[in-house]
């Protein structure tokens, strides 16, 4: 049973086509430049080229369930090399957002957690606070692994690189109002 319904595909295509040059996915010539340029494609279930093939075949479900999107590190190598001018990094972002929003794609769990925690922090304070982010991240993923990071954390703390308190911007309330406004806009 496909999770990604036709509707979701429509929503995705609409979003995809709204980004600059998003429509160019239709012009992919399947040359594989993206895959061979991607520093992490070896670890992906589907290479970037295959993701585009799957998208065009309407197999959004397959795409979202793969680990591929969460292995994109936004290095833009594919985007600058793509002979069809496809902004593939932006396509990946769009897929990440779709997966997160519809909670499809468990394979990306650690990255999803990282991204969610990041958003929480920034929404609250207006800025990121790295020590808090890392703490939250390991709490929600693998607390045991946090222990292994302890020596590094200690070294950082020792050098003053792990400040305990984060900073909240003065305009936090205003920023929240802006976020509310854009949220409302998006739900229209």
């Amino acid at each position, binding site marked *: 049973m496909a999770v990604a319904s036709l509707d979701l595909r429509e929503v995705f295509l609409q979003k995809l086509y709204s980004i*600059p040059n998003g429509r160019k996915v239709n012009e992919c010539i399947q040359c594989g430049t993206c895959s061979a340029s991607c520093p992490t494609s070896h670890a992906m279930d589907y290479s970037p080229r295959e993701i585009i093939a799957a998208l065009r075949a309407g197999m959004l479900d397959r795409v979202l369930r793969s680990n591929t999107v969460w292995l994109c*590190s936004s290095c833009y190598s594919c985007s600058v090399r793509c002979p069809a001018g496809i902004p593939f990094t932006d396509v990946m972002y769009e897929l990440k957002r779709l997966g997160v929003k519809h909670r499809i794609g468990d394979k990306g769990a650690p990255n999803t957690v990282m991204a969610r925690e*990041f958003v929480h922090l920034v929404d609250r304070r207006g800025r*990121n606070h790295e020590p808090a982010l890392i703490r939250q991240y390991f709490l929600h993923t693998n607390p045991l692994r946090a222990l292994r990071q302890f020596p590094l954390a200690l*070294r950082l703390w020792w050098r003053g690189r792990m400040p305990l308190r984060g900073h909240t911007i003065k305009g936090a309330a205003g920023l929240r109002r802006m976020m509310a406004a*854009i949220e409302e806009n998006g739900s229209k």
Partner: protein
Amino acid sequence: MSTTVNSNAGASASASTSTRGSDGRVFSYYPGCSQMAMNRAYDVSTRSVAARLGLELVELEDWNCCGATAYVAIREEQAFVLSARNLALAEQAGRPLVTACSGCFVVLNKANKYMAEDPELRSDITRALAAGSMRYRGTVAVRHFLDVVVNDVGEETVRAQVTRPLTGLKVAAYHGCQFSRPFGERADPEFPDTMDRLVNWLGGETVPFALKAKCCGGLMMTTQPDVGRALTGKILKAAKEAGADCVITCCPLCQFNLEGFQRRVGAAVGCDCALPVLYFTQLMGHAFGLDARALALGDSLTPVAELLHREAVHS
């Protein structure tokens, strides 16, 4: 007749806003969240060398998160709002915006461009900003500090500041991804030579370094350590094999990945990956004769001070 007057007025107005920035000396400085915590050395050294070069970096008042990679992955328009708020603040200040963080640079620059290109996005963001009583007209230039130093300040001024030339020091200039990609406005997107030129002005030399703009793995060092280590490992290995004494970076995330995990990374790629890693600002500051404190050399996880000390003996 009236149009002539209007266009003149317009021209002089825009000229006055741009002159304040484009005399090339005064910038709104955007440090970025990372420089407030784990990578404060970059902030400290950036401010120190800027002062030496006669650049006035005025910290952007009440700046917020740029809307970074991790944020865009969850919510797009919100991320643009975050960027836009910073751009609006910079516009208010009437100065171009400079940041030393490649991640922040790409996010702010991209938001700026996309808003300029996409009227629908622009109007959505304008409405959101208005909810917080702010406005962005799209007049701010977003710059990377490295680009400003090399392309605006330039060779003559930089050379004039050098008191401890980096004679004999072999440097791997690791530019990373997001300094020159995706737009490649000021440097080749795949083979940037911005830091190479700079090191040369400082009296040092850079080694041929094929992986100078390959990916360090970014956040994956934490979320997918196997993948991250392999990427970082390749870079450190290649730098070592090229005969580099150290690696310099222009991005806090690259810096952290390259310096923070060298033992485990070495194990992953099966070679010794221990190599001093420092910000280009630290290296530049050292050549300018600035002391270790002004460059926060003590923050380093790699033996940077020792390297520079040795180097100082050289010269």
